């Protein structure tokens, strides 16, 4: 610390205003709190808009309903991808970054004014791109592959949004620096903050990739550049498009740990192992952007194999480690809470009535079983030939981004509303139901789209019947494909109901919820497990206390499913026409 820095620090500390959280005892910087509120509200608004678009997409792809006209369908699909895959997720992540730095570390937030600049840029950018899409001349899909050309403000909006989000990332890093200098914590940052740091690092690469490719594309759209190489665009664009979903993975894993800690008192089984797993994410997770380029001409198999496998599956190793340590820490905590009977009493008697816990655990299981396994299959160079651009791909990423990330974000909202907005959740009974409703619907969307994809149904297709009246060379998918797309539509209705409920509960609670104060703070976080014995695992890395049979069973089940599904797909591949 330099001498010159001290007065500034002191001034900053004096200028920041804090309150003390009645539930956790943490010091809450009011400037950070306002920024978290703004970003979270913006996120929910874009989730609502994007969710409605998503429902319209699913209802159009349901052959019996076929709701929208083709032009409207492609417009709405572009807007759906943009609003949920980018705006909802990243606004919420910025809120998480501020929460995991300023709030969890009881620090003042760095440069709150810049936080508002970032927020304004993100809002202006998001709205601008939405307007471009809704005007109808920019139905180029979220990926906007040249030479398809959108209106210039489509790209400009995305660039402004990216710059805003990048500022948010640096505010997070700045807050880490301030917290360390002002000693608001001792030793290493908490695991949740470390997970958020992982998300932030991936976000920096993501946003930089987006800016690097979208700026020339913007210039191309206004005529300053004559040509954008299609393959280079795609390569760099996916540095953003796929890595942005890796921010999600890091963020929602951090949230799993957070909710486990708050609801059942879970402690990391081993700081070293959990942080090591996040470190593997930092190193290798972003390489998986290559998943979208596996059947591309012009890139070598060496490049494809190294990148698609996240450098020998080391990032998958990270996920598989979290897949054990998250349920493992919950089991350990529940066993210490007194639920020691049999293999699964800890799980049966977990607080399933608490929407934060229920949402988190559903997110964990479905992300692993549906999203994780399908992701590795899709990302296997040769297997991708059977799946590239089929609706299997959206099936996979709805499992990761919807049942995984979105459900985890919804779950944490049930803690954020009482802790940050200081309001109790209205309609607790409906809130209890919400994660199940949404989770079931989202799981249905994922599974049925993956099913249709294995039957060859293409993604981003208005009509899959190819009637002779419209198409010169008609083709028919197996009837089962239409059934799958119908079930997908029904699941989407279920998920949309769950999503609408989430928005109604969240907005209703923020506006009309009972104020949270010291008297009702603990109860506001929802039902918690009754502790039969006090205190969870007492020490980190206490190898002696390790006996987690339930987690071993879950992990073994996961691994068996993974291996079987992996080999089934190689068998299918071997039946394809030989191709060299």
């Amino acid at each position, binding site marked *: 610390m330099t001498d010159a820095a001290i007065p500034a620090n002191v001034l900053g500390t004096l200028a920041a205003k804090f309150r003390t959280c009645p539930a956790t005892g943490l010091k809450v910087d009011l400037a950070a709190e306002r920024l978290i509120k703004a970003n979270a509200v913006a996120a929910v608004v874009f989730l609502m808009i994007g969710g409605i678009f998503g429902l319209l997409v699913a209802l159009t792809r349901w052959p019996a309903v076929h709701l929208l006209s083709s032009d409207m369908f492609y417009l709405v699909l572009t807007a759906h991808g943009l609003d949920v895959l980018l705006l909802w997720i990243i606004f919420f992540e910025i809120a998480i970054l501020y929460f995991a730095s300023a709030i969890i570390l009881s620090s003042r937030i760095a440069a709150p004014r810049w936080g508002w600049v970032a927020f304004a840029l993100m809002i202006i950018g998001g709205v601008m791109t939405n307007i471009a899409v809704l005007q109808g001349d920019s139905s180029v899909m979220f990926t906007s592959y040249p030479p398809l050309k959108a209106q210039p403000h489509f790209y400009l909006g995305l660039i402004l949004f990216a710059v805003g989000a990048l500022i948010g990332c640096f505010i997070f890093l700045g807050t880490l620096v301030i917290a360390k200098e002002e000693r608001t914590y001792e030793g290493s940052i908490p695991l949740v903050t470390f997970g958020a740091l992982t998300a932030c690092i991936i976000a920096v690469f993501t946003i930089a990739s987006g800016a690097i490719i979208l700026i020339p594309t913007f210039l191309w759209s206004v005529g300053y550049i004559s040509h954008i190489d299609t393959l280079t665009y795609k390569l760099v664009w996916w540095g953003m498009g796929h890595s942005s979903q890796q921010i999600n993975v890091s963020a929602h894993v951090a949230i799993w740990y957070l909710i486990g800690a708050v609801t059942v008192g879970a402690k990391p089984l081993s700081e070293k192992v959990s942080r090591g797993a996040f470190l593997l994410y930092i190193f290798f997770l972003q390489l998986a952007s290559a998943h979208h380029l596996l059947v591309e001409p012009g890139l070598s198999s060496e490049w494809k194999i190294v990148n698609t496998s996240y450098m020998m599956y080391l990032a998958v190793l990270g996920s598989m480690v979290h897949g*054990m340590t998250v349920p493992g820490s919950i089991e350990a905590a529940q066993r210490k809470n007194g639920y020691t009977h049999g293999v699964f009493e800890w799980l049966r008697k977990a607080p399933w009535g608490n929407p934060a816990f229920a949402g988190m655990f559903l997110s964990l299981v479905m992300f692993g079983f549906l999203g994780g396994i399908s992701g590795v299959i899709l990302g296997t160079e040769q297997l991708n030939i059977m799946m590239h651009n089929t609706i299997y791909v959206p099936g996979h990423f709805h499992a990761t981004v919807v049942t995984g990330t979105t459900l985890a974000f919804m779950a944490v909202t049930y803690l954020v509303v009482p802790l940050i907005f200081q309001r109790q959740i209205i309609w607790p009974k409906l809130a209890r139901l919400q994660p199940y409703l949404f989770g079931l619907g989202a799981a249905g969307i994922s599974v049925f789209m993956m099913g249709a994809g294995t039957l060859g149904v293409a993604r981003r297709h208005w009509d899959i019947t190819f009637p002779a009246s419209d198409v010169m060379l008609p083709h028919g998918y197996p009837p089962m494909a239409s059934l799958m797309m119908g079930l997908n539509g029904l699941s989407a209705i279920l998920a949309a109901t769950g999503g609408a409920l989430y928005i109604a509960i969240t907005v209703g609670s923020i506006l009309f919820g009972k104020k949270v104060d010291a008297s009702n703070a603990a109860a506001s976080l929802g039902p918690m497990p009754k502790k039969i014995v006090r205190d969870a695992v007492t020490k980190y890395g206490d190898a002696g206390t390790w006996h987690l049979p339930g987690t071993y069973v879950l992990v073994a089940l996961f691994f068996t499913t993974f291996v079987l599904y992996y080999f089934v797909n190689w068998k299918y591949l071997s039946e394809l026409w030989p191709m060299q």
Partner: protein
Amino acid sequence: MAIFPPQTRIWWNEPVAKAELVWIAVAFLWGLFMFFMMIYWHIYGKQNLSPVVGRIDPAVFEQRTSEFAEKFKVREEGNLGIPVAKPTAGGDAYMLARTFEWWPVLELEKGKSYKLHLSALDVQHGFSLQPINMNIQVHPGLEHIITLTPTEVGTFGVICNEYCGLGHHVMTGRIYVVEPGQGR
């Protein structure tokens, strides 16, 4: 708890439980296996994407495809005026993608290998052979040469599965596969 700093100053040296180490080892080895599986398939598997790619002017590709269709045309598809080209077994076959068609229709013989030249004239398209479900990305300006061996007789649809514009869903093509020495 995960929301508080680690309790011990040096947590890196904490012992890790055996069960956790076992799982890490299993997951690591499985990852290695999956990695080498891709390499194995390149050596012993029969379904690998061809690395033969070259930059080409779309106009040149269009010219070559027209010449190919002219030379090997055996009939026209129905009364649509789309040529059906039957290349010599083992020889070159061309198919181009443009908004919104795959052109021309091909007729191939079962069990024979063909060098299929794929490219796009305008925007990106997705070559999706159905119901086989083989999917390959097609770029304008890149000629991709794939050695393909049909193994079953029948009528196969080629769907575009990369969004290419508002008529994306009407973009179809066709490949017929017949017994060697026979026509349709």
